Each structure stands twice: as C-alpha cells, then as structure tokens.
C-alpha cells in the first residue's frame, strides 16, 4: 500500500506540473484581458503587448460605471439569469423523460430536438421575431427569455447523464410507491448534482452574457442588459479597447464566483451509497 501511495504521488506531481505549464499557456489571453483593463488606451495595442500596465489606471472602470445605466442593466441581467434557471429545470425534465421512459417514436422526437441545434441562429432570427410580435411579446421580458428557455444541447446532456443512472433504482422506488415526480425530485435530481452543476454554470454564463435578444426585443433601453450596455461604448471607428477590456473583466467576475461555487458539486460527485 505504501509503495502504491508513493507511486501515486509521483504521478500526481507529473500531473500537477503538466497542468501548471498548460494552465499558464491557456490562461494568458485571460490574464492579458484583466491586466489590459488597467491600461490607458495608448498602451493597449502596443506591440509587443505588455502583460502588465506601465501606467496603470482605473479610469476605464470609472468610465464604465459613469457611462452606463448600471442599475437598470444589472437588474435586467439578473432577471434573465433567474428566468433561465427555469429553463434549466425544463431541460432537465425533458432529458429525464428521454433517458428513462419508453414511448412511441421516442428517437424520432429526440432527433427533432437535436435538429434545432443544427441551424445557424441568424437564419431563424427574423421568423422568431415575427412570432414574438404576433404573440405581443415585443418589448417584454418574456420575449427576451422565452426563445432561449429550452435548449437541445442541454436536453441532450441531461439525457446522456441520466441514462447512466441505473433503472433498478427507479424501479425500486416505484415499488416503494413513490410517484414519478417524487422520484424525479427526490432521487434523480440529487444523484445528478454534477451535471446540474455543469448546466448551472453554462446557463448562468449564457444568461449573464445575453445580448442579441434583449437588444432586438427591446423598444427602449429599459430592457437592456449589461452586455448591450457595454457594446454601446464601442464607437463606429474608435474601438476603446481598454474600456471594453474593463467591461469584459467586470463581466467575468461573477462567472468565476459562480464557477467556484458550482464546481464543488462537479468534484464532490455522488456517493455510491445511493446506488446500492
């Protein structure tokens, strides 16, 4: 056992070193993005780029907050995030339905779901807008959120994961007299924590960055999100790179927090006891 452990240690060290080297290379643009947000505009396109600002400034952040209707944009963004989690839940249900039930034409319906991933979004933009227009949802939060609520990627991912949950477990619960919804909420959801965590992260990122629909659907700026607000700072000719980097750095902060929060569920895993 002792020798096995030391061998495991060496391997762990190799893994760590590999990860550190790869991690540094891979995160360089990210680091640059953060440090650039403290650079004056004159330094940002310097060639070769400086990793750290020579004349650091927080002016970009000051501009960022003084130039935006910050409160309104943040509120809208948060509403969208919250509503998206309803979507996450619907996708989980659908994924479970596809994974653990048998019904006629199941695969055909599933292909139909997958097909929605295969068309570039721009092609359907105008038809979706016209539909929302017919439904009277222009200039409403519902119009912004509704089209993105269900996502094939997410349903597919849930299906794949939930398929690995042993069916015996569900059957056993049924024999104990548990209802289908009880099984889903009390058995499936806890077991699926890791995948809920992954989807939670992805849903949050997508909602937090939501951009095109808030812009298209809004008839005034009261429905704009943070991303739309940020892109307004970009001129037609002058690009204000430093300002945009400050905006991007600011946008990324909550994502990192959410990521650290959720990732413990990815790593924690489910204890095997539930499966026995």
């Amino acid at each position, binding site marked *: 056992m002792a020798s096995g452990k030391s061998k495991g240690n060496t391997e762990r060290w190799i893994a760590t070193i590999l990860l550190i080297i790869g991690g540094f290379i891979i995160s360089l643009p990210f680091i640059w993005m953060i440090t650039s947000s403290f650079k004056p505009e004159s330094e940002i396109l310097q060639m070769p780029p400086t990793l750290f600002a020579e004349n650091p400034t927080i002016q970009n952040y000051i501009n960022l907050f003084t130039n935006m209707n910050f409160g309104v944009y943040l509120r809208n963004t948060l509403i969208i995030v919250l509503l998206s989690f309803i979507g996450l839940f619907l996708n989980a249900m659908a994924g479970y339905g596809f994974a653990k039930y048998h019904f006629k034409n199941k695969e055909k319906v599933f292909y139909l779901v997958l097909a929605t991933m295969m068309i570039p979004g721009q092609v359907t933009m105008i038809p979706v807008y*016209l539909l929302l227009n017919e439904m009277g949802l222009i200039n409403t939060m519902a119009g912004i959120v509704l089209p993105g609520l269900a996502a094939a990627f997410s349903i597919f991912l849930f299906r794949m994961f939930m398929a690995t949950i042993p069916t015996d477990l569900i059957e056993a619960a049924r024999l104990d007299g548990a209802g289908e919804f009880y099984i889903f909420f009390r058995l499936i959801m806890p077991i699926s924590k890791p995948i809920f965590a992954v989807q939670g992260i992805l849903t949050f990122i997508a909602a937090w960055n939501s951009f095109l629909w808030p812009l298209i659907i809004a008839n005034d700026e009261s429905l704009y999100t943070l991303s739309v607000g940020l892109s307004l700072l970009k001129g037609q000719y002058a690009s204000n790179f430093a300002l945009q980097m400050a905006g991007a750095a600011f946008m990324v902060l909550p994502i990192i927090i959410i990521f650290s929060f959720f990732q413990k569920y990815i790593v924690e895993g489910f204890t095997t006891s539930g499966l026995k």
Partner: protein
Amino acid sequence: MKKKGLVVPAVLAMGLSTALAGCGGGSGDSENTLSVWAMGEEGKLLDEMTEAYEEENPDVTVDVQAIPWDQAYDKLLTAVASGNGPDVLQLGTTWVAEFADAGALLDLTEHMEDYPDFNLDNYFEGAQTSMKYDDQIVGIPWYVETRTMYYRTDLLEEVGYSEAPATWDELKDAATKLSESGEDVYGLDIDLNDQITPFIFAWQNGFEFDTENPDFTSPEFTEALEYYTSYFEEGISTTSEGIDIIQAFKDGQKPIFFSGPWMINILNDQAPDLEGQWAVATMPAKENNLSSIGGANFSVFHNSEKVDEALDFISYMNEVDTQIEWMEKSNTLPSRLEAWEDPKLADDEMYSVFGEQLENTKGAPPIKEWEKVAQELLSSIERINIGGADLDEELESFNEKANSMIE
C-alpha cells in the same frame, strides 16, 4: 388521451408566458413620445442633447434608444420585417440606398418646403447623394466624414517634402523615399479592408460611377487600380497586418495613411508625444483630388405616425447652432455648410483641412448593391496583391460580376 397529457403543460407554458409578459418594460408608445434610434456612443450622447429640445417643446418627449453599431443591422432588419420601427432613425450613408429601396424610409419631398433647414443647398454637394434615392428625398445629413491624408511632417521633411505631397506622382515619390529610409518602413499605408479607398483613387483619375452600367474596364478605372496595386507590388505598402496603425505612425514605420476625422482624437489620445510632428492634408490629386464623403443621415421610418414631430426634431438637430454643439460633444463634423464658417472649425488647423476636402467629395453611389460590389472589388484586389492574379483579367471578371449584381 395523449392530448390530455399535452394540455396541462401547454396551459402552464401559456400561463408562464403571460406572467412573464407582465414584467416587461412597458413605456414608449404614449401619445407624445418621439422614438429615435441612434447608434453606439452617438446614441448615448444624443440622449443628452434632447433635453434642450424637450425644454423648447414641452409637449414632446424624445426617447432615444442607443443601438450598438455591430448589431444595428440586425435590429433594423427586424424593424423592417415587422414594421416596429422608431419615428426617427440614424442611418449610415452607405445603408441609405438599401433601406430606401425596401421602402423603409419616408419620402420627405412634400415636406421640404416647410423646413428650410432641409434645403439641399445647405449641405455639401457630396452629401446630397445620400439624401436622394430615385426621385425621393429619404434622409437629411446629420454629420459627415471624409478621408484625408495624415502624415508625419518631420519624416517627410527628411525626404525633402516640406509640404504634403500634392499629386499622385509626388505621393509615390515621397512614399518610395520613405520606404527606402529604413527597414520595415512602409511609405504609404493603405487599408486593404477599406471599401471606399479604391474608388477614391478611381474618382481622382476621372472615373464616373454610372449607377446603371458601370464600366470597370475603362482606362480611368484600370489606371487607378494599377496605381493602387503598384504600392503593394513595389513593397511601399504591405499586405501584412503588422502593427496597429497608431503605433506604426508613432514609430515612423507607416508615416502616411488615409483616414477620417475620428483619427484626430485617437492620435491625440494615444500618441500625445507626437503633437506637432504630424498634420493632415487634402488628398493628392491626379485629375482632381476628390475624396469620399460618408457619415450619417436622419430619416423618418416609413410608418411613423408622428411625422410632423419627427421632422421638427430633425430640423432642430440640423440648425447650425445645434450642429456646432453636437460637433463639440461628439467630435463629428457638421453637415451644414454654414456651420463651417464658425471659427471653431474654420480656424482649427486640422478641421479646416477637412472642411476644404469636404468641398471636393463624392458619396458612395446610391445603389442598394453597393456593399456587395465594393466587397467583390476588395476580393479582386486581394487576388492581385496576394494571389498574383493579372490585373486586367481580374477587372474584366469583376466588371462582369458587378454588372450582374446591379439590377
């Protein structure tokens, strides 16, 4: 039985969507609100400008919606498709023809007499192109831009030019000498992605863009393109991305380039040390020294119910005083000729050059296929510069394609 299974969630979904509809923004369409779409930063700045207007017209509220430049086209498309547009719309001059052709812009002809500020003669000749589509008046120029030549006075002095090169030959000579003055120096920087530059050269060489049957194999056009591509062939300009133009200008690696008025501020902000070592000049001439004119117009959306209010607002924005105020706020150039008599422009050594150049400008041809034609030409130029294609053959095929694009 199956149906029943679907009804419950369907009702749920509908309930959800109506509940969500409740939390919408819900302002906008009241009786006296004028909705205005403006782009990017200008949209934000315009919002500040409207206060004065609202004070003068207490019964009207102006609601400016700022739209990011990169997504403006998407937003306009949905507006055109659904008819859910604003009352007043800021439109880049190169988009005017396309949206006018689609019938998205109100014909202002019958209102022209009521609003003296709209008179065509108030505006630069080049800008008048963008006001008209077919026989309609579809827009009023709000601000304009034109391309001039930015150059390093000190470096040009070193190669014997105490004045800016004034002709094609001088430009070529100066750029050649500059290129020879050091390694990695490119005497003239030409932006290969800029759609209008090849046409500027062509205009200067006497080319006329016939909007029905343009002839791109004419000697005027061919010669201009020969001149344009010769810079790349001789290594005076580079097809390689290299470094950002501001830094290259600062380092002296790209001492001459063509650009618009926005560059003044960028240079002042990003290269403050360079002050006094650079200047702008009007375009070097061949037959003439025409440059392009662009900028943005105000248009009224075709189904606006507040046409009078919209026109009144546009008229206010285009008064000479408002234009000057806007210029100071946004650093864009006024479209009104009269505004240029103001000392803030006339006595400014940079702006006055732009004023002079603006007198000699042409607008992009008012055809809806403009973007496509211009992009096709850039592809042809790429094939000549990088792919080594023959210029005459490329122009022949470009001519054919362009003419088939234009209806």
